[in-house]
């Protein structure tokens, strides 16, 4: 177990280096003088000032040198300052990461809370209307653009019925109730794909369990059906659910970019798009690093959790 973990962590190092270097190179490939990116619209800096900016940010150095300087600083825990507002990048990104984490988690919870019971119900009542309904939803949920679902939800609940605030963000710490009300629609829009996948997986896992012999025998012995279903089936259904959650981490980040724009949520997704356009290299680098770490960590946790739940899986290749 320990050697497995060490190996996985060691494997992550070159991946992270690759990711950050690729992004670094991509950012520097954006045409134009990066020093001029410091000038806001309608503002002006003279050549003397621009030269100072170039020197201070090593903009005249070759790409690889700039990258190594960045890497050295990061290893010392210094992520630099945002060129957009001269504040420490770690601080800036941290606050926004919390926002994304908050509603990313909400999306997951919603997906699990709806997906697992619906999947199980559809398996237990196989061929009944409830099964058809769940199947249609699970097929549709994967095909529907999540941001469009968000738009439709805004149209229905926000504009039409006025039940929920259609947009905006309130911190959980400022006002928990308002915060949750604001989170429902975006979490729903973000979670619907995962929910559909979970529904589908837990249905087929459940069907497999229901078909197994030991279930028939235990039923024949007269033990209560409910207990059987929950104890055996849930554990089996959990595996694919965890796998999906792990795989979906990257897509949640991708979804967050769009959903945050749509609902006006000041999270990582919106921030990184803004930073790319502002050519705020250090912010983009740090955000990508954060995403990569999150995705790799989610994959690792998924694998470990699956192995722990299912003794048949060994820590091998």
């Amino acid at each position, binding site marked *: 177990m320990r050697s497995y973990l060490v190996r996985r962590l060691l494997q992550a190092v070159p991946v992270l280096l690759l990711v950050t270097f690729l992004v670094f190179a991509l950012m520097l490939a*954006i*045409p*134009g*003088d990066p020093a*001029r*990116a*410091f*000038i*806001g*619209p*309608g*503002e*002006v*800096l*003279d050549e*003397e*000032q621009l030269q*100072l*900016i170039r020197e201070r940010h090593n903009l005249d150095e070759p790409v690889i040198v700039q990258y190594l300087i960045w890497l050295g600083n990061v290893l010392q825990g210094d992520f630099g*300052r945002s060129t*957009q*507002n*001269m*504040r420490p990048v770690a*601080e*800036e990104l941290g*606050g*926004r990461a919390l926002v994304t984490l908050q509603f990313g988690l909400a999306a997951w919870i919603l997906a699990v809370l709806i997906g697992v019971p619906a999947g199980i119900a559809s398996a237990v009542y196989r061929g009944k209307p409830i099964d058809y309904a769940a199947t249609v939803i699970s097929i549709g949920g994967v095909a529907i653009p999540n941001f469009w679902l968000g738009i439709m939800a805004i149209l229905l609940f*926000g504009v039409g019925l006025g039940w929920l*605030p*259609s*947009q*905006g*963000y309130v*911190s959980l710490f400022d006002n928990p109730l308002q915060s949750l009300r604001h989170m429902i629609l975006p979490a729903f829009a973000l979670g619907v794909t995962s929910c559909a996948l979970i529904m589908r997986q837990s249905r087929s896992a459940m069907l497999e369990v229901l078909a197994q012999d030991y279930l028939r025998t235990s039923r024949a012995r007269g033990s209560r059906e409910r207990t059987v279903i929950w104890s055996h089936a849930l554990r089996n259904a959990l595996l694919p659910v965890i796998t999906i959650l792990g795989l979906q981490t990257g897509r949640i980040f991708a979804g967050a970019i769009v959903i945050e724009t749509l*609902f*006006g949520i*000041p999270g990582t997704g*919106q*921030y990184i798009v803004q930073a790319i*356009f*502002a*050519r705020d290299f250090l912010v983009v680098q740090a955000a990508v690093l954060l995403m990569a770490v999150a995705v790799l960590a989610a994959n690792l946790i998924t694998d470990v959790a699956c192995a722990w739940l299912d003794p048949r899986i060994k820590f091998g290749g």
Partner: protein
Amino acid sequence: MSIVPLASPLRASVSASLVLVAALQAVLVACAPGSRAERLDSDALVARPPAVGGPRYGGHLRVGHSLEPTSLDAILGRSGADAYFWRQLFDQLVDADPQLNPRPETSLATSWEIGTDPDSITFHLRQGVVFHDGTSFNAHAVKANIERILDPETVATPRASLAVIEAVEVIDDYTVRFDLARPWGAGFGMLADRGGVMSSPSAIEELGPDYGWNPSGTGPFRLKEVITGTLVRFVRNEDYWGRDEHGNQLPYLDEVTIRVIRDETVRAAALRTDEIDVTYLPYKDVSTFERDERVQMETMPGGGIALTLVFNVNKPPLDDVNVRLAIAHAVDPTVINRAIFFDRAIEADAGMWPVGSWVHEPDDERPYYDIDKARRYLAKAGRESGLEFTAVTHHNPLLVSSAEVVRAMLKKIGIHMDIDVLSSGPATERFNHGQEYPMFITSWSRYPEPDWMASLAYKSDGYYNPGNVLRPDVDELVELGASFYDNEARKRVYLEMNRTVLGEAWFTPLLYGVTYAAAPGKVRNLDQLMGWDGKMNFATIWLEE
């Protein structure tokens, strides 16, 4: 708490503007709801609460704004929109009214004299003003602030606007003289903007790079809290020197929170659901709020150039003035206004100094929509068979849609225009410096000081002059315009400049923007919200219970 006379003795050079200001104040007092007829002696000590004349002290104003500040240190900020934030924290050496007349009673300089041989301006400073960190405002602080901007190491954005200043001399604690390279009529406008913002020199020294987010000015509010990307909170500066027309100490509000809400639809929705108290409205929502009786609205016509064509006069195929004029005459702003701006913008009838600017004057000579004329110009250029080019615009939905309409209109005279959509930074840079595009479809901020526009966009070596064609006649006008101290003389110069800029189609402004501020009835003095530059000020806003 020290009490300062509201208005110090006036010098001859500013008396004219003061008369106007006094007249305006009289009108304001007369119009103010529930205001009393009598005016208090400005020297009177007024305890609070209650305030005299109607306003109520206290309350928390929640504001919705589209952009977060790039810095709270006004001179390091890189966006004009930063003013929404720093205006609350700072005072300028010279403040201005919407007509850009200096307004000494709200300025840190109470009076000034202009020297002509050699050129200089001597400022007499307000006494007893303290920075938020407790240190005193004086001539040494002015010198330190101006020198900080002029030092290239600071990388201050207003540096170019103060380039005329050769030296700053402290005469005594409350008198300071700017030695100038040439006459500087544009100076008051420049000092009313970021260039004249006064920070506490000791706070700057103490905090270094962190000063940008821990500012210490003399303004009506102090900074309480910044949550970047989300909000900035201000609290009342108990020691503020400013007084209203009744002599009440300003500001009235205890607290102001500016919440950053990027999406304009979200912002309007937040006003409707009472999550914020005041915001500027998107054009598409104005009519909805007009019908809403709970909401009052203030407008500022000419709060910017909503849509303009900018040409690179050096870039084929638009290097031919007749082709540019054909384009300028082929675009119908009426249709764009209706389709994209919900008829809420104003069709441009002059140059880049819009309605509301003191330099604005309707101009019959500039290009107006006339498709026959457009065809004639095209024929004159020998391009009846049509031509092709690519224009650039940036990611703003209003601009992209407008560009699409422009494309459809040019098609009618046989011009095929492709559109490149870039984000605003690269678009601006690639148009102005990369010289990659002959035309830029964009919007433009309202710069009340006309020299800013003239020296940046019209002068041959201007940062926003993409063609950089050497035009000694225009360059001379630009320098002349900046030098006169008399506004009427300046105006004549700028109108003369327009004949080239519009007549040769360097710029073809199509629509002037209108700023719509909306707030529920409890927000009072909303008419004083928009400052001379259209940015929000909260010093005189108060809230009904």
